[in-house]
């Protein structure tokens, strides 16, 4: 599975490693739902650390889609919400 950390790049993780992320993922979900910035920072940090340590970095010159996209550690609640609510207008030139 390919996971992208925004502003940082892509990692390839085994299915088993991805399963190991589940509990950390829930913590992030909860923090966003509760709009708890402190908690979000900590949960993201833990999640991203696990991705980096259990995955292998995808080389820069490989063109592959990610299955998951994770915000970077200093993202705010607003950043995450904006990512989710953003629809048409875009960052991608077309």
């Amino acid at each position: 599975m390919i996971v992208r950390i925004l502003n940082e790049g892509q990692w390839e993780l085994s299915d088993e490693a991805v399963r190991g992320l589940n509990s950390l993922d829930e913590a992030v979900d909860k923090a966003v739902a509760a709009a708890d910035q402190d908690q979000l920072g900590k949960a993201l940090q833990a999640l991203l650390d696990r991705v980096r340590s259990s995955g292998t970095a995808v080389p820069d010159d490989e063109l592959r889609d990610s299955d998951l996209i994770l915000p970077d550690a200093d993202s705010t609640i607003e950043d995450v919400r904006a990512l989710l609510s953003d629809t048409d207008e875009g960052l991608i030139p077309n």
Partner: protein
Amino acid sequence: MAGIFQRISMIFRARTDKALDKLEDPRQTLDYSYQRQLELLQKVRRGVADVATSRKRVELQATQLNTQADKLTQQAQKALEVGREDLAREALTRRSGLQQQLTDLQTQHAQLQGEEEKLTRASQRLQAKVDAFRTRKETIKATYSAAEAQTRINEAFSGIGEEMGDVGLAIQRAEDKTAQMQARAGAIDELLASGALDDPTGTAKDDITMELEQLASTSDVENELARMKAAIGAGPGAAPQALEGQQAPAESLPPAAAPSQGNYTQPPAFEGQQPQQAPANDGDLR
């Protein structure tokens, strides 16, 4: 593992697909897309340069504030030497105000440096992906039939689209942060310009410097006066020695008396004129 992150990747993918929908002849639009990628790459590089400019500006301001803080420390030292604790206190109070500004600047500097590093890294990543896309594009155009090409093109587009989305976000964020910091840096420039933080070039003198200089010149005058009085009041035996050692001031003293009288009759005449001032001179010297 799913939740919001899967949704985020779906959004990135949806955007990419939308871009693809606009294409009519896939092979031609490969070239067009490549052009857009190069443009974005240029934009990322400009972003890095902007952040670097802001960082350098903050560094310059920090240097100015540091110079100013050092100067205030020296002023406090001087003020204490001449026994003006009030002036020393004022100088140190101003210095602690500057210290606060400096701490803020250091925080800003660290943030800008972080942004700069991230953007530099992002620009390297995008460069590698754009290069990979160019290679893939040429292969697709040369090797595959139109029908086969479509699938390969979709793959190539989605691979680069996501990276472009990520870098686009990073640039936007760096631009926002840089704009904020430039506004704050501008405020400090204004402070420096208004003289509230004093002019670091040293062309204009602040009030503490002026007072210290006034004190210094007053005490110089007093010292000189005391020295002259001592030379005069030291008595007949000492007078010739003083004249030898310090000719300029001693000769200028008795201009009226000199022409009319001989060398060694002079000192007694002076003693007779100002006998009551001699003891006071001794006191001034110490």
